[in-house]
Every structure is written in structure tokens, then in C-alpha cells.
């Protein structure tokens, strides 16, 4: 399928199985963001998903750490050890679970909450002509 127009953005929310990677191949993702939580098992899962993405031919694969309280160093250290990029860090934010209970979108619930602000920053970086360098180290180099 053709990409969206120049200023168009297509966002696919998906599981990271091989099968899903094959399916999303139809949109030719310019960037693959692997969302992880800041604990070891989740980081390990993320590492495997990132590797899978790289094996599927995606060049621009990076982690996004979510629900982060004070684990910035842990996340970055893990990423460094495994040659992964961190595209963004989203802070833990009570407003998100609260919005879910209210059956409201996070943005409608509190458009200035810390997590929403961090997601906004990440989105800006993505579309800011830096699609080839989402990570702080300038593009993903996923360890083999």
C-alpha cells in the first residue's frame, strides 16, 4: 500500500509477533517503536521484539520506555548494552489509569498530563524530519 501523503501519518498499533510484522509490512513502516516497561522481563521482551523488527528488514527500530518513575538510568543502560536506541521515555502518570476508569481518552481526560506531554514530544521528534534518527544515538543498531 502507498504511504500517506507527505504530511500524512499512519500509526499502526500492534502486537509484535512475526505474523503481525508480516501484516504491517503492507504499510512499510518508517519507524518501529517498541514499547517497554522499566523492568527486566519487559526490557528483555522489548529487546526480542526489536530484534524481530530488524530481522524483518526495519532499519529504524527503537525502544520507548513507558511508565517510568526513576528507572531512566536502568533503561538507558540496558539499551546501551544491547545496542538499542531509546526514542523516548514516558513518565509514569496516574492520569492514564484514571482516564481509563473514566472510559475517556488520556488526551480528553487531561491534555497537559506528564505522559501526554512526553508523547507529544516523541511525536514531534518523529515527524520533525528525523524519521531516520528517532533514537538519541541516531537510528537503531539492534544487537545481533
Amino acid at each position, binding site marked *: 500500500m502507498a504511504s500517506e501523503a507527505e504530511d500524512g501519518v499512519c*500509526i499502526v498499533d500492534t*502486537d509484535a509477533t512475526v505474523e503481525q510484522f508480516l501484516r504491517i509490512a503492507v504499510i512499510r513502516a518508517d519507524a518501529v517503536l517498541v514499547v517497554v516497561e522499566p523492568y527486566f522481563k519487559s526490557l528483555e521482551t522489548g529487546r526480542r521484539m526489536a530484534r524481530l523488527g530488524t530481522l524483518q528488514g526495519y532499519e529504524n527500530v527503537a525502544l520507548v520506555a513507558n511508565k517510568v518513575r526513576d528507572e531512566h538510568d536502568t533503561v538507558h543502560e540496558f539499551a546501551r548494552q544491547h545496542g538499542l536506541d531509546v526514542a523516548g521515555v514516558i513518565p509514569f502518570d496516574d492520569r492514564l489509569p484514571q482516564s481509563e476508569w473514566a472510559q475517556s481518552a488520556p488526551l480528553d481526560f487531561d491534555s497537559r498530563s506528564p505522559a501526554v506531554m512526553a508523547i507529544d514530544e516523541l511525536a514531534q521528534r*518523529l515527524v520533525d524530519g528525523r524519521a531516520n534518527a528517532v533514537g538519541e544515538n541516531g537510528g537503531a543498531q539492534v544487537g545481533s
Partner: protein
Amino acid sequence: MNVAIVGKGGCGKTSISGTMARLLARRGHAVLAIDGDPNPNLALTLGIPVERIETLPTLPRDLVERTNQGFRPTRTLEEVCASHAVEGADGVRLLVMAYPRRADTG
């Protein structure tokens, strides 16, 4: 630009996907959000009411065909959107893939 946001259930990828989609739409981008999760919840994050989620059209199973070269789309994105996308808050269009059965058996 096409972005795939992946992760395990519960990690928050849907909140990030939906919020990012709407923020980019507010900044003037034409945004298409595709819910490719087998357990689709993206509509809620996009601010589409629960009642409407129940009536969302799911994509037909013959959207992609398997060839020797891998999967190949059978329709253009525009064609699929015209028949299956719904519009939510901030003008974000949503396509729900939802695979109740395995789609690659056809």
C-alpha cells in the same frame, strides 16, 4: 510517515498510539490509525465512544494475499479506508483490523 507501535499487552502501547495520533492530527497532520492488535482497544484512546466501537467495521479477510514474495495487499489503502475507516476526535481516521480468526488461512 508510517509508524508501527508494538509491544506486549498492558505495556501502554495503545495509549501511546492513540494519544500520538490525536496530537499529530491537532498539529495539522492527516492521521490514519490502524488497530492491528488482536484485542482492539485503540478506538477508546482515540475518543470514540464505547457504543460506536461495537459497530465498527472490521477489515475483510482477503485484504492481503500470500504470495511467494510474502504478503501482498489486494486493495489500496484509500479503497480500504473508504469502506472501513471511521472518523474520531480531531479527525483521526481509524481502521480496525481485528482478527477473530486467523486471516492467513484463506
